């Protein structure tokens, strides 16, 4: 799977939880999930579980802690996919 495909899937998973549509319209790898997209921090658990289902991977809690930006999520998923 290309990085762009992973990015697109990550963005699609985030969409229902986004509270700042303006920031979402111009989402890039540097976009912060909590700060910019205003996703509720409790929803990060749902998002990480959705990543696991979508990509058929397991993301440990420590790895999940490292997810700040959309790019962080793409990087961790890419690593897990090997």
């Amino acid at each position, binding site marked *: 799977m290309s990085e762009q495909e992973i990015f697109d899937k990550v963005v699609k998973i985030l969409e229902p939880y986004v509270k700042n549509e303006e920031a979402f319209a111009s989402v890039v790898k540097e976009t912060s999930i909590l700060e910019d997209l205003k996703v*509720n921090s*409790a929803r990060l*658990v*749902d998002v990480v579980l959705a990543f696991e289902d979508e990509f058929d991977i397991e993301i440990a809690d420590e790895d999940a802690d490292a997810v700040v930006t959309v790019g962080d999520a793409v990087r961790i998923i890419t690593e897990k996919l090997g």
Partner: protein
Amino acid sequence: MGKKLTPEEVLDLLPQQEPFRFVDEILEIDEDHIVATYRFSPELDFYRGHFPGNPVTPGVILIESMAQVSVVAQGLYLFAQELDDISQISEMVTVFTDAQVDFSGIVKPGERVTIRGKKNFYRRRKLCADVEMCLDDGTIVCSGRLSGMGVKQ
């Protein structure tokens, strides 16, 4: 590993009290599910205003009842299993994080409801449950997915 609480112990630990406790009895509880009942006393104060001459239990109160059972009580059971010392449980508080609910009936004063919660996931102290509330005749009045998170006070 921590302790498996009994339904009575969970009820004792539930922080919500009168006049904002909407759970009478926990019939069943384990890692994956909970069944509890509550009877809406006609004396509850909110019926005076919701609505004058036509008392109906507010939907938000039905949600609260479902949350106290499927998120708070079920959450206490799951926390307790993680803790070495059960007294630590008093340092935790469950915050309601999100909900998606459908209403399909009404609950009149004096009616008893049964709430059935089924764990959807429990991860990083976030508990997400699928919940149904039904009347004694089996009519489902409210169902949905509720979540809460355990945080230190």
